[in-house]
């Protein structure tokens, strides 16, 4: 063996150097892993114990769980949770792109505004934001549009009444659902801004220069060149953010928005004095929704990688042709 030190190694390669007899496949006894067998055995026993507990422990109350899990009250909760997450995420992404572009502009005022926004909404916990926006009515009973500070300076000019054109009571404007959307999307927007900014910065500067040299203005460069290329970097963490906000909809019962999934399940548990099955039902629902989202994310990422990576794009073209 040691007499031909170089030849046996490249030999298994199908494109082996010519002029050699066909390579002899390596026949060797693989390394044994007894530890794996022990670990597998231990795991099998533990799993069996867990399944046994699931079946025999009466506290799970499976029939009750499945009956309640699909009750109309809970299904409304699922709908609220999904809609709330989707709307907040959509607004959050829009805010994120907007704020990221502000942050990267050469206008110092926009940069500062973007920085302060991101700083504030990343610092304050979502549950605090939820309670805060749920109680905005304390701050303003009505929302009025008019000339700023009119009550101070209009009397100086001899006018008695203020200059307010339009007013609407806060209660009608800020329903718990709207408060929840505002709280969650403002928070989400701050995180998305950082993700989009990182994505935009990841695009090679030469791309912008090439586009500018072709006579494209800043808006067109962003829309057609930098942002589409940034998506490849933006999409994976955005998927994680979408999952996170879906789970954080369970916080909005603090507003209080009570039609949300987790609150509904808890309420059934409290009413029937049978809490634990409802907690398990909550786990199952969130697992189901999150898993569906993961599938969507998988396909989305693959679609983007196909048009952006060389090897993948070769395959993509081949399929289309």
């Amino acid at each position, binding site marked *: 063996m040691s007499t031909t030190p170089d030849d046996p190694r490249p030999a298994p390669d199908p494109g082996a150097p010519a002029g050699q007899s066909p390579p002899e496949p390596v026949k060797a006894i693989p390394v044994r892993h007894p530890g794996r067998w022990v670990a597998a055995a231990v795991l099998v026993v533990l799993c069996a114990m867990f399944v046994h507990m699931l079946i025999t422990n009466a506290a799970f109350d499976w029939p009750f769980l499945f009956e309640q899990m699909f009750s109309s009250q809970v299904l409304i909760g699922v709908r609220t949770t999904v809609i709330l997450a989707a709307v907040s995420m959509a607004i959050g992404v829009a805010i994120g792109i907007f704020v990221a572009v502000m942050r990267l502009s050469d206008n110092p005022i926009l940069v500062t505004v973007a920085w302060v926004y991101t700083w504030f909404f990343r610092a304050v916990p979502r549950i605090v934001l939820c309670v805060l926006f749920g109680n905005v009515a304390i701050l303003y009973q009505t929302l009025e549009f008019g000339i700023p500070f009119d009550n101070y300076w209009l009397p100086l000019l001899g006018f008695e009444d203020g200059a307010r054109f339009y007013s609407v009571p806060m209660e009608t404007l800020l329903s718990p659902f709207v408060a929840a959307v505002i709280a969650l999307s403002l928070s989400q927007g701050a995180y998305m801004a950082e993700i989009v900014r990182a994505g935009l910065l990841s695009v*090679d500067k*030469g*791309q912008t*220069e*090439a*586009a*500018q*040299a*072709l*006579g*494209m*203005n*800043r808006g*067109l460069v962003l829309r*057609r*060149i930098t942002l*589409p*290329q940034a998506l490849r970097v933006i999409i994976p963490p955005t998927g994680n953010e979408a999952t996170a906000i879906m789970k954080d909809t369970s916080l909005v019962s603090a507003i209080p928005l009570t039609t949300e999934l987790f609150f509904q399940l808890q309420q059934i548990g409290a009413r029937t004095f049978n809490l634990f099955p409802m907690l398990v039902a909550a786990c199952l629902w969130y697992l189901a929704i999150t898993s569906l989202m993961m599938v969507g994310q998988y396909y989305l990422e693959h679609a983007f990688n196909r*048009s*952006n*990576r*060389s090897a993948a*794009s*070769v395959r993509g*073209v081949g399929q289309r*042709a």
Partner: protein
Amino acid sequence: MTQNTAEAGTATGLGDDPMVVAENVHKHFGRLEVLRGIDMEVHRGDVCCVVGPSGSGKSTFLRCINHLEKISAGRLWVDGQLMGYRQRAGKLYELHDAQVARQRRGIGMVFQNFNLFPHMTVLGNLLEAPVRVNHRPRSEARKEALDLLDRVGLADKAGEYPRQLSGGQQQRVAIARALAMRPGLMLFDEPTSALDPELVGEVLDVMKGLAEEGMTMVVVTHEMGFAREVGDKLVFMDEGIVVESGEPRRVLADPQHDRTRSFLSKVL
């Protein structure tokens, strides 16, 4: 477009305003002075090759021409227009982003690293600016783009993505992309420096064809053979100034300055 430039190129003498005029152009990045007073004229239809050691400021000067870099002092005109500024009543006003973009439409640029748009096909790269910037009908732009691809020898690559092409092919696409805007002036920033040696020729051939059609070109390059054969003018830059310029054969054969002589002795 080629007709226009060809006419202008042959119209020597009276009324022959140069395509590019640089007057005492300075550029500094912070304290680093990259350009220290460049005076240059490029006439219509001419091929002007700019050579010099790295760090001499030749790429920076090229980028000043289409205002990718703002000049710190001096004036720079392209096709009679002051680049990046408007002069009125003795005062200089900076142009808005959209106005600078409009000025750049008539100037094509080819980069060392190609900078093709990787998320678009070759055809998409060629269509982007004519359709989005010049608002030309897509079908018409498409026909012209395919003609251009044919001209650079890549008619069969229209549907492929840039990364599926070799470096030389990518650079030829980049040239076609710039030509799709029907520019009156083409800038080349070391177009062959990132290429494998055996791919340099195919790009230079395309550039040579362009020069023969009468395109006005400013070419920053290390290819002395190209400069001698195709160039109408050779400019040697060092440390931010033009050391020597003139007819390429003359400068290459008989450099007047020591600095030029020592540089050429190393690269020839």
